[in-house]
Structure formats: C-alpha cells, structure tokens
C-alpha cells in the first residue's frame, strides 16, 4: 500500500457515523419490491434527518443547514440510494473544502519562521516533530525552539521529537519568558543560516486574555528581528473538539494572525466535521491532518479524501 494509502486507511479505520446514519435513513423507507437497493425519496423529512447527521459530525447547526439546502437543490423529489446520498454529500463538502486545501507554503525567506499555537493537548508538539521530520526529508535545515516553558516536561517531550526528526531543539529553563527564548532562537537560526525555525508554544485556552497576550508578545518580539516573521502561524485543532473550535479560530486569528490550520487525531472516530464549518466561516487554509502518534502520521489535507471519510465512502 502506498504511503498516502496507509494514511487514508487510518482516516477510515472506523466506520463513520454518517455512513451508518445514511444507511438507516435510506432503509427507513420500505425498499421497492424487486429493487436491488433501497432508495429514499428526498423530501423535507429526509433532509431533516440528513441535517441531523451532519450536525452529529460536528458540522454545526448553521453549516449543516446550508449543506443540506445545497443538497436539496439538486436532489429534491428524486429517489436516491444510500450511495447516491453519500456521493452527493461528499461532492458538496469537497466543493466547500477545495478552496482551503493548501499545503504549508514555503518561502525563500531564511529562516522561515513557523509558529505553532493552539489550546492544551491539541497536538502542537507532536505536529512539530512530524513536520520537522518532513522538512528534513526534503533537505531543509530546521531548528526547533521549545517555547512551552510552562508545562511539566514539555521541553523533554520536544527534545525526544527533535532526536527522532534529527533536528536541534533550543531550550530554556522552566518558567523562562517564552518571548525571550523565541527571540534568541530566531537570532541563532539566522546566524546559523537555517531554512526553517519552528516554534512550539504552551497550550492556552483562547479565553485566557493573559496567555493570549503572552502569545502576542512572542509575535511582537520576533518582528523586532524580522518584521515579516512569523511567516506561518499554524493553529493546531483537535478533531474531537466540538463547536468551540470556531471560537478557537476566531480568537487565535485575532491575536496571532493564524495563517493556516492543522487538524490532529483524525484517526479516531471524530471526523472533523467542524472543519467544514470553519472553511465556511473563515476560509483559512488547511495544511495537514494528523492521523496517528508516529512521526510519519501527518498527511496533506485532501478535500476529496476528507469528504469521503466524513460521509463514509470507501474509495
């Protein structure tokens, strides 16, 4: 199996709730006698049930309604099989997501500064390890700054990832001002002519104004050395998160100029439906998805794969 095949497989390890749900909706209607497949008339009642299923994938009430309305446009009054319903949904979702599927852009700027932010436990550190490994494999020189100076053993955790990826990790004592470490790290990466500087930050909830200010300060300090830094600010989101992801994007974007998203833990049963709502509302690029705890469990975001996984269509 190809590399991406394996990752796609991870994405589909469990059956999707939408998959089962759509099956149930279609089977609810008595199958036509003699028909090989059950079919269901697309009417108001059916659309309402469909909308519920989308909500159950974390798409949110508003976006679910919009997606359902778009499905209704082409399908109302037709009798569809479960597969046809899924295809229609997948097409619609992939259409919404197509615009935001963009790989992490690389710039000629040296060092390109990649700041990684997000709430606690979302997968920032792991994602940095995975990304660093991919950049290394692409022949880039990478430096990592361990700016989570708050959480116990956060530095040790990142050092392990540094070793795995073959990338140096710059550290400071616990409790050090993360902005000052970020400053030193950028100065050093510049001196050493590194291609990329990746900055890990402590997890913070977006409603904590003090911690958000700490983040804003990191950005300000970086800009003292390089006014164009950070060149990418990645917000790492956990796929199991519900509608709070919208608030996370809104506030982190305001405070730290988020330039793109990474969604982790898509190897579980959560299918990240909230990404559809996010694409709908903010249109921020989605760069990659995390599908496991190992170093190569990071895949580019592919709108078709994502949409098919969400609705439970195997390839």
């Amino acid at each position: 199996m190809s590399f991406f095949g394996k990752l796609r497989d991870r994405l589909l390890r469990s059956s999707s709730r939408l998959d089962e749900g759509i099956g149930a909706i279609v089977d609810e209607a008595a199958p036509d006698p003699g028909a090989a497949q059950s079919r269901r008339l697309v009417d108001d009642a059916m659309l309402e049930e469909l909308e519920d299923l989308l909500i159950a994938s974390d798409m949110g009430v508003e976006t679910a309604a919009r997606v359902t309305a778009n499905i209704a446009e082409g399908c109302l009054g037709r009798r569809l099989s479960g597969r046809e319903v899924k295809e229609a949904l997948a097409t619609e979702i992939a259409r919404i997501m197509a615009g935001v599927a963009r790989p992490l852009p690389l710039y000629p700027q040296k060092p390109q500064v990649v700041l990684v932010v997000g709430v606690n436990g979302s997968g920032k550190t792991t994602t940095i390890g995975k990304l660093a490994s991919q950049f290394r494999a692409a022949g880039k020189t990478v430096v990592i700054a361990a700016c989570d100076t708050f959480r116990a053993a956060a530095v040790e955790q990142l050092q392990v990832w540094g070793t795995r990826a073959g990338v140096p990790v710059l550290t400071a004592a616990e409790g050090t001002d993360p902005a000052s470490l970020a400053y030193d790290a950028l100065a050093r990466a510049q001196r050493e002519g590194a291609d990329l500087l990746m900055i890990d930050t402590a997890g913070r909830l977006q409603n904590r104004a003090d911690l958000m200010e700490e983040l804003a300060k990191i950005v300000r300090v970086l800009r003292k050395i390089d006014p164009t830094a950070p060149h990418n600010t990645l917000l790492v989101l956990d796929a199991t998160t519900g509608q709070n992801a919208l608030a996370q994007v809104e506030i982190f974007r305001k405070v730290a100029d988020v330039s793109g998203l990474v969604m982790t833990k898509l190897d579980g049963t959560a299918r990240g439906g909230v990404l559809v709502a996010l694409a709908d509302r903010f249109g921020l690029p989605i760069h990659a998805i995390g599908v496991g705890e190992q170093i190569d469990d990071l895949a580019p975001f592919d709108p078709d794969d994502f949409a098919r996984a969400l609705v439970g269509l195997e390839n």
Partner: protein
Amino acid sequence: MFESLSQRLGGVFDRLTKQGALTEADVQTALREVRTALLEADVSLPVARDFIKAVGRKAAGQAVTRSVTPGQQVVKIVHDELIRVLGGDDDAGALKIDNPPAPILMVGLQGSGKTTTTAKLARRLKEREGKRVLMASLDTSRPAAMEQLAILGQQIGVDTLPIMKGEDPVAIARRARTQAAMGGYDVYLLDTAGRLHIDQDLIAQAAAVRDAVNPRETLLVVDGLTGQDAVNVATEFDDKIGVTGVVLTRMDGDGRGGAALSMRAITGKPIRFVGLGEKTDALEGFDPARIAGRILGMGDIVALVEKAQEVFEAEQAERMMRRFQKGLFNMNDLKMQLEQMMKMGGVEGLMGMLPGVGKMKTQMAEAGLDDSMLRRQVALINSMTRQERANPALLQASRKRRIAAGAGLEVQELNRLLKQHRQMADVMKKMGRQTKGGAMRAAVQQMMGKGGMPDPAQMDPAALQAAANALKSGGGLPGLGGAALPQGLSGLLRKK
C-alpha cells in the same frame, strides 16, 4: 457566537402573549429551539434526542407560572431536567478509597488531561483527606510522559513510582501495587497513556492493567470541549474498560460543556470532578446547576427567571404608580396590596419585625387584625366580577349578598372592606396630587416588596417610636421605611 436558549425562546414566544397552561404546540415549538441549543452546546445527537423526549413529557400541560412567560417556563423545565440528569438521582458519594492501598485508574483519549488530573487528584486527596498517595505513570508511549508526572509529583509533594525504562504498563501497575502496599500508602493513582477507544490493542492493554490491579475507581478523563464524538468515547471506554466516574477537564475554557450531558447520559456514571485550569489546585467537585446553566448558554437560569419576575413586578409597579398618580385606586389595587402584605409575612410577620410592637399584639388580635382577615378580604375581592373590582361603586345590596355568599362571609364584613377601600382611595387621591413621581415610586416599590423589609435594627429609634404611636392611634405604619409602607395600608389598621 451562540444564542442562549432564553434568547432563542424569547423570539419564539414573542408571538405567544397568552398565558396559562403550556399547549402541546407551545411545547413543540420550544423543544425545537431547545434541541438546537443543546446541539450547539455539543450535546451528542442521540443524547439530545432522548433528553428532548423526556422534557416534552414533563412540559406538556404544565401551568405557566404567573409573571413568567411560556418561554421562560420551558427554560426552567429544561434546566431542572438538565440538573436532574447531570446530577443523577442517587448521591455519588465519595471516591471509594477505603481498604488501603486503593488503586485508582485514569483513562482517556490522547491529550485529554489525564496526567494533570492525576496530579490534581493526588494533591486533593493528600491535602483535604490527609491520604498518603503514590502516583505511577504507565504511559510508555508519549515522549517524556513519565517525567511529566514525576515533575508534578515533586511540585505537589506526592511520591511517584521510580521510573524503570523498558517495563510494560501491566508490569508497572503491579510494581505500583507492591510499592503501595509495602510503603503504607492509602491510595495509588495509575496514570495511563492516551488511547483511542477504537485502538483495540491499546484498549486491551488498559483492560489488562485493570485486571492486574482491580481498581476501586476507574476515572474517564474527558476534554470538556469535546464535540459529538463524546458519545463514542463514553460508550467504548465504558464497555471495554468499565468506568466508575468521569472527570471533565478544560472547563475553564469558554466551551458550552455539552459533553458533560453526553457522558452522564451514556455511562450513567457520576461526573466526579471538573478541571478548571492547568495548575494542580484547579480541580473542583461537580456542580450540576453550574453546568446546566452553561449548556443552556446562560449564567444562571434561576437568576434569569427571578430577573424576569422582577421585570414583571417593576412593570406592575410602574402601572400602579401611574394609576395612583391619577388618584385611581380600585379593588384590584387593594387586592394586590393585601397579597403583598401576606407575601411579606402577614400582619404578624410585619409586626414581629418591629421591636416594641409585641405588646400590642393582643390589642390587634382583639381588633380582628390578623392574617385570617387578610385572607378573608382577598376572598371577598375574588368573588367580585371584573367590573365590580374596577368600579366598586357598582355594589348594591343584591351584588353585595352575592359576593359575600361567594366568599362564605357576612355582608357586614364586605361593608367593612368597602369602607376601608374608600378611605384608602381618598388617601391615594390626596397623595396623587401632592407627591412627586419619586416619592410615589418609592412607595410603590416598597409595596411591591422591593428591597425587602427594612431591618428594624437599622431603623432610627425615633422612627420606630413614631411607628408604634401611629399604630396605637390607628394611623397606619409610616415607620416601615418612612413613606415606604404605602399610606394606603393605614385604613387596614384602623380600629373598628
């Protein structure tokens, strides 16, 4: 970003001004909104569906309390049911950590907060219950996970099992048990690696740990920001490992916390604790009322309904004030005053608050001045027709007989009420002409019970004396907050 349930329902019920019992249609309309609110708060769909059904059964046909709109009534029913489900019918009691050393197993998804919660719990047991606690990390997968727990242990002064690389989780758990027994620990906490509920190997590993130590408690640690996946996580962990309680972390965030309801509804197990921050002291017991308010998107529903009542009463007071300023005072106004007096504790209650009034009690009782009189008067007004209440001048002999009979009282008593009303109406007319809006407003506010009763201890002795004198001379109760107690009540206290 999200509308609170009351806002939603407010919109729906704006059209419905009638009050009385909640009709089937009212309930259905409201429940659609409730459902949306729950889903926006991340309550899992199947849980939200069941919940709505239960609320629907409870709400149908319920009488709408006066002074609350149907919308608020539904919110209240939803809120109460939320608290019931979240809290459960039986008291969860304390953690089962008798019989030392008692093992507690911590499980959950990656990054849910297990390690932090382990330390928080250890600290709590040590500081609040004086337990000797040992912590052990069974996390052999996440880099530096064991170091993380060891550092936290140092910070809070709780022992951790020495780290031995290369041991598997079951072996570590056994070593922890031995060490806990030999070291005389009361409790040992086993922190585990995060695992996906669908990762069969890792779930089997957790089950093996469970079988090795027979935990007294197995706590499922769940991110409070979890969305619809909560239903899968709860089902699988409970089925495959068996949990005895839930801890919700990151409740210091601004998530709506619908996962609490999903967890509780699906596992049926109590939510033991709530994580409110990254520090080791940020752990609190679970308060269903707080979470219920949060899920509904309102700080505190009870406060809301109370506020609604206040607004209602303020409107009533305002209306009454305008009437009084025009010198209007009919039976409805009198009735409201009588009811307000009863609410404030009745004649006895009012008197009891005034020092030095005690000895007048007998006099008052002789004069027939007691709470039963208030009730009789209200009964008389209740048996009047609407026109009669609005215009007592209509009352001729035949009407009087009918009214008295309706209240089961003598016409004589009705006559007394009418006389009292006339006197009060006269006072109102005078006051209406004399007083400026402010004073009148204060009087009406007081009458509506705003600010409660003045505290006698805070009252000026001279005012108290004046009050007592006024009572003796049958002139009313001006001492109750100066002009506060409506002058109108004076008639009520006049001797026969």
